């Protein structure tokens, strides 16, 4: 039997099949970041330190108000640290304007209505790269690529407000994609989406990974993160309380209870059967099926 022939089999034997991408260079370096919303007198981030490497897909989870969005807003300079340091691609964000950082960090807002405005989807897709000073012929090329990548052919000439909300959400991501940032920040990409669009977003994140992009995804959708994330950053009360692979985080009952998070159903089932299967917790249906099959195929070890 060759090693890593079947990820699910590997999992059943107690090894994590996810290739542990150590990634490339440090893409984001946050050290001792503290942020206060002065007007409200609220400390939203409290001494957060984390490094994210190029090509990683990182999920940010936590309850509402735990500091997830405040953290990600530091990446493109929308917020500047009260104390501590945030460096993106080696550049300290403190002295940079949002518009300058936009070339490195693409921030996809939760509500696409906040960013779309142009008379057609096509024009809107060209807005970002035009702001960055990309030549017109290359803009046209990038727009075509984005339309193909996101499957927007049918709506390319339509007004962004006239298309369905799930489609608009994709246009919102596509409008950042055309700017070719090295780092994508996705804020709740699957909120309010039907199953098909969520799957599509899932697939898109996978393809961004293949293209070498770094993706930082804030989400309450544990299944989405279980599917795509290499690491989860767990925020609680403005503090980073865990920074581990999703499998470890979901298996950590204390962290999950503290943040009132629940693992995906598949993982929960797998965790409850863990004493019987001996396998690592599954993150997806094929993994769970494989661990169960493996456990059932084992000769009964005496128990009834």
């Amino acid at each position, binding site marked *: 039997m060759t090693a890593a022939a079947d990820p699910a089999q590997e999992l059943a034997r107690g090894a994590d099949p996810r290739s542990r991408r150590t990634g490339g260079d440090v893409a984001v370096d946050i050290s001792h970041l503290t942020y206060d919303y002065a*007007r409200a007198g609220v400390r939203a981030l409290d001494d957060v330190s984390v490094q994210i490497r190029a090509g990683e897909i990182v999920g940010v989870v936590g309850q509402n108000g735990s500091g997830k969005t405040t953290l990600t*807003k530091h990446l*493109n300079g*929308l*917020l500047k640290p009260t104390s501590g340091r945030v460096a993106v691609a080696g550049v300290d964000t403190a002295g940079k*304007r*949002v*518009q300058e950082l*936009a*070339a490195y960090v*693409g*921030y996809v*807002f939760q*509500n696409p*209505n*906040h*960013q*779309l*405005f142009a008379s057609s989807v096509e024009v809107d897709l060209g*807005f*970002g790269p035009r*702001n*960055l000073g990309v030549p017109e012929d290359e803009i046209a090329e990038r727009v075509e690529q984005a339309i193909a990548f996101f499957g927007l052919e049918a709506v390319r000439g339509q007004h962004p*407000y006239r298309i369905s909300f799930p489609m608009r959400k994709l246009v919102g991501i596509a*409008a*950042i994609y055309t*700017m070719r940032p090295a780092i994508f920040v996705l804020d709740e990409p699957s909120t309010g989406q039907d199953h098909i669009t969520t799957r599509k977003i899932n697939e898109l994140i996978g393809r961004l990974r293949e293209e070498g992009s770094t993706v930082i995804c804030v989400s309450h959708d544990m299944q989405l993160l279980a599917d795509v994330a290499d690491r989860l950053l767990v925020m609680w009360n403005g503090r980073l309380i865990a920074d581990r692979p999703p499998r470890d985080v979901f298996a950590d009952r204390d962290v999950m209870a503290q943040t009132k998070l629940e693992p995906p159903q598949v993982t929960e089932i797998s965790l409850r059967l863990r004493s019987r299967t001996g396998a690592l917790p599954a993150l997806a249906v094929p993994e769970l099926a494989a661990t169960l099959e493996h456990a059932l195929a084992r000769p009964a070890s005496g128990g009834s």
Partner: protein
Amino acid sequence: MQGVAVPVSMVAGNSFIHRLNPIAKLVWVLAVLVISFATRNPLFLIALSIVGLGLVTMAGIWRQFSRVMLILLPVATSLIVFQSVAPAFPQPWTPIATIGPFTIYQEGIYSGLSLLARATSMTIFALVMIMTTHPSDLFTSLSRLHVPYVLNFMLAMTLQLIPVLQREIGVVMSAQKSRGMKSTGFGAVIPSFVPVFAGAIERVQQLSISLESRAFGSSGHKTSYRQVAVRPVDWVVGIAGFAFLAVCIAVFLNTGALDMSRTLIFPPALAIVLVAAAAVLFVGFIASAIWVVIRA
């Protein structure tokens, strides 16, 4: 994110003005409105404005208030400049000085100052009320006065939408800056305002559906969660507002609305300094506006 929009919303506080009943404040705002239109005497109106600034101090809202008042500055300078050379006043005009090809008229300065002081006094009192009154308190108080519910609701909704829209403008500006939008001037208008207005229209549509589904406009006595007390001091302040209005009107009727257009003489030096300063500021505004448009 901050400082994108001009905040014309309530500033939290616990001053005497904050605690005053909304109706008492409204009486004063309406009284000042009527008085400001009833006279053209700039000295009287400036005095009224100074009283208003005293209220701003009492309420402790100078920082937010002065940001809004900055908007009046271009209006102020243009009023002084244009009125002084072409007064909106019956002829004959008395020339008092000349700057290049322009002749400054006595009546022009009078007219410019009075229009400016009129706008200023009304704005100050209105802002003091808006910035110290929770919209819901105003709403509750007005319905106790049997103001028709729909009218009352329209007023309250308008006031409540201001902070909502301001927050929305902040988010949209952040989103567009994240897409590399460089300009904050003319070039930013379409990308920032289309989402805000489209959002506002959508919000209002949803609001109307939600209102109807909660039986908006059905008959019967409306109750309110918020209770606004009417203390004796509120009565005193409210009645004082009416009394002030009545006294002013009586004085105006007996003195020709305190008309001093022919008796208040401006020394030429003062007129030149005033008009020159206003002109420099005004040209500065125009130039900076053009520069912002070109840069965008």
